[in-house]
C-alpha cells in the first residue's frame, strides 16, 4: 500500500464538505444546478484520470464512453421503463464495454497512435449514432424527457433532492479512485505509465493492465454520462462529440492529473470560468484555449501541482 499523504486526505475532505454544505448555504436552484453539474463532470474527469493520470493513456475518445453511458441509461429508463438504479448500472456497463472495445482495437498501439485511434473511433461512434441510428439516438435533436429516480416517495425533480443523489455517487467515485490508486493494481498501473517496457520485463501483463484501466475509466465515464442526461433531462449525440472529449482532457489537465483532487479542481475552474466569462464575453472558449496552452507549457502538473509546490515551501 502506498502511504496516503495527509495533505491529500485533507484537501479531499475539505472538498467533500464544501459540496455537502452547498444546499444549506444556498437554496437557489441555479447554483445547486451548477454544483451538481460540477460533481457530474468531476466523476467524468476522475474516470478520465484513471486512464491518463494513473496509466498514462492519453485518450481523446472518452466522449464515446460518456455518451454511450448517457444513451444506455436513457434507453433503459425511457424505452424499457426500468428504474433509475438499473439505468445507472446499464450506463456503467455500456461505458465499460465501449472502453473495452476501444482497448481491444488499440491493444497493439501506444503513445500518439493510441490518442489518434481513440479520437477516430469515438468520431465513428458519433457519426453512426447521429446518422445511421437516428431512430435510436433521436438524431441531432436528441431524446428529451430522460427521467430522474423515483423512490421512497421523494420528489427527485426537486433540484436539492437530486443533488444528494449526485453527491452520494460523487463521494463513491472519490472513494473508489482513492482505493484504486493505493491498491496493488493502482501501483502496477503507475508502473505501466512510468516505464511500460520495464513493467513487462518484471512480469506484469501490460496489455491486460492497460485494458483494465481503460475499462474502469470507461465505467466511470458512463456513470457520469447517465447522471448528466438525468440532470439535464435530455440526451443528444452532442454528448458523443469530440468537444466533450476535449473538455474532459482540458479539465483534468488544468486541475492536475494524477492527483486525487486535481480533476475536481479543474472541472470547478472551467465551469466557473464558463459561468463567469460567458456572461461578459462570447469568446470565452478561445480564452480557455489560451489558458490551457499556458498551463501545458508552464504548469504541466496543473493547479493542484502548483498548490502542492506552495504547500511544501
Amino acid at each position, binding site marked *: 500500500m502506498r502511504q496516503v499523504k495527509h495533505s491529500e486526505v485533507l484537501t479531499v475532505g475539505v472538498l467533500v464538505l464544501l459540496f455537502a454544505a452547498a444546499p444549506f448555504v444556498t437554496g437557489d436552484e441555479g447554483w445547486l444546478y451548477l454544483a451538481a453539474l460540477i460533481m457530474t463532470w468531476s466523476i467524468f474527469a476522475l474516470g478520465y484520470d484513471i486512464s*491518463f493520470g494513473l496509466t*498514462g493513456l*492519453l485518450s481523446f475518445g472518452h466522449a464515446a464512453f460518456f455518451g454511450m453511458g448517457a444513451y444506455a441509461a436513457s434507453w433503459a429508463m425511457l424505452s424499457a421503463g426500468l428504474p433509475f438504479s438499473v439505468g445507472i448500472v446499464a450506463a456503467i456497463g455500456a461505458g465499460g464495454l465501449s472502453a473495452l472495445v476501444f482497448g481491444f*482495437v*488499440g491493444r*497493439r*498501439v*501506444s*503513445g*500518439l*497512435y493510441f*490518442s*489518434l*485511434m481513440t*479520437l*477516430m*473511433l469515438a*468520431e*465513428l461512434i458519433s*457519426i*453512426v449514432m447521429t*446518422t*445511421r441510428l437516428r431512430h435510436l439516438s433521436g438524431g441531432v435533436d436528441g431524446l428529451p424527457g430522460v427521467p430522474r429516480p423515483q423512490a421512497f416517495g421523494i420528489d427527485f425533480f426537486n433540484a436539492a433532492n437530486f443533488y444528494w443523489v449526485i453527491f452520494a455517487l460523487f463521494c463513491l467515485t472519490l472513494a473508489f479512485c482513492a482505493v484504486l490508486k493505493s491498491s496493488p493494481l493502482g501501483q502496477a498501473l503507475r508502473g505501466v505509465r512510468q516505464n511500460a517496457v520495464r513493467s513487462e520485463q518484471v512480469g506484469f501483463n501490460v496489455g491486460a493492465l492497460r485494458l483494465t484501466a481503460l475499462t474502469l475509466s470507461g465505467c466511470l465515464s458512463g456513470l457520469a454520462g447517465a447522471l448528466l442526461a438525468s440532470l439535464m433531462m435530455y440526451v443528444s449525440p452532442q454528448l458523443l462529440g*469530440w468537444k466533450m472529449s*476535449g473538455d474532459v*482532457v*482540458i479539465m483534468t*489537465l488544468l486541475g492536475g492529473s494524477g492527483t486525487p483532487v486535481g480533476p475536481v479542481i479543474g472541472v470547478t475552474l472551467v465551469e466557473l470560468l464558463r459561468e463567469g466569462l460567458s456572461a461578459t464575453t462570447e*469568446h470565452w*472558449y*478561445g*480564452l*480557455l*484555449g*489560451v489558458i*490551457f*496552452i499556458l498551463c*501545458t*507549457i508552464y504548469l*504541466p502538473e496543473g493547479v493542484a501541482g502548483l498548490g502542492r509546490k506552495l504547500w511544501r515551501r
Partner: protein
Amino acid sequence: MSTFVIGLSIAMLLFLLSAGLTLIFGMLGIINFAHGAVYMLGAYVAYQVAATTHNFWLALCVTPLVLAVVGAIIERLVLRPIYDRPHEFQLLATFGLILVLEEAVRMIWGLQLRSIATPPGLSGSVHVFGTDISKYRLFVVVFGAAMVALLFFGIERTRLGLILRASSNNAGMAEMLGVEVGRVRTAIFALGTALAGIGGAIAGPMLPIQLQMGFSVILDCFIVIIIGGLGNIRGAVAGALLIGMTRAYGQQYAAEWIDIATYGVLVVTLLVRPQGLFGIRLRTA
C-alpha cells in the same frame, strides 16, 4: 471517369495537408492537432484576399505566406518551450491551439458560410471520354501532382532537404555540425502550415468555407498518415490516394456508408499493421 477525377482532387487536397502533418511529425516529433484549424484559417485568409482583390491567383500566392508567418509564430511561442516534454503535452498544446484559432476565425469572419468564386478560365467543365469533368478539379489534380513532385525533389535532392533530414534524424549531431536546429524546426513548422494554407486556398472554390471544415478533414488526414506510416511522405501519397478514392467512389455508390467505410479501413489497418502499411519507423512514437 468524373468520379475518378473527383477522387484524385480529394486525394491531392488530403495529400497537401497530410504532407504538412507528416513533415512536422517526422522532423519535430509532434502531431499537430491544430493542422485542420490552420487549414481552415488558410481558407478564410484566401477568401478574404480573393474577396478584396477579386483575384484567386493572388490569394493562392498570399495565403501560404501569411500562414507561414502564423506557423512560425506558433512554433516560437507554443512549441519551442515543450520539445523535451512527453509527446502527450505537445499534443495537448496543439489541441489548445484549435480552440484559439477557431475562436479567432469566429471573431473575424463570424459563423456565415463563405465561398470563393471559381477563377475565370477554370469554371465550367471539359468533355473527356464521354463525361463532363470540372476544369477546376482537373487544375487541382495537376497542381497537387506538381506539389508532390516539388516536395519530393526538395526533400531528397536539395541541400536544404539534406539539412532537414539530418536535423530530424539526429538533432544533436546536426547541431554539432553547424546546423541551427532551432531555425530548421521553425522553418519546417512554417512549411507545414504554409502547405495547409495552400490546401485551404485550393479547397475554397470546391467546398464551402466554414468553421467545421478543419475538423472533418483533419480526421481523414490522421487516417492517411496512420495508413501511410507516421513521418513517411511516400506513405502519405498512397494513403491520400486510397482515402480520396474511397471518399469519391463511396459518395457515388453508397453515400450513407462512406464514413463508416473510411473509418473501417483505419480500424483494420490498426489491427493488422499498427505501424502503417508503408511504415518504416525511424522514430518511435
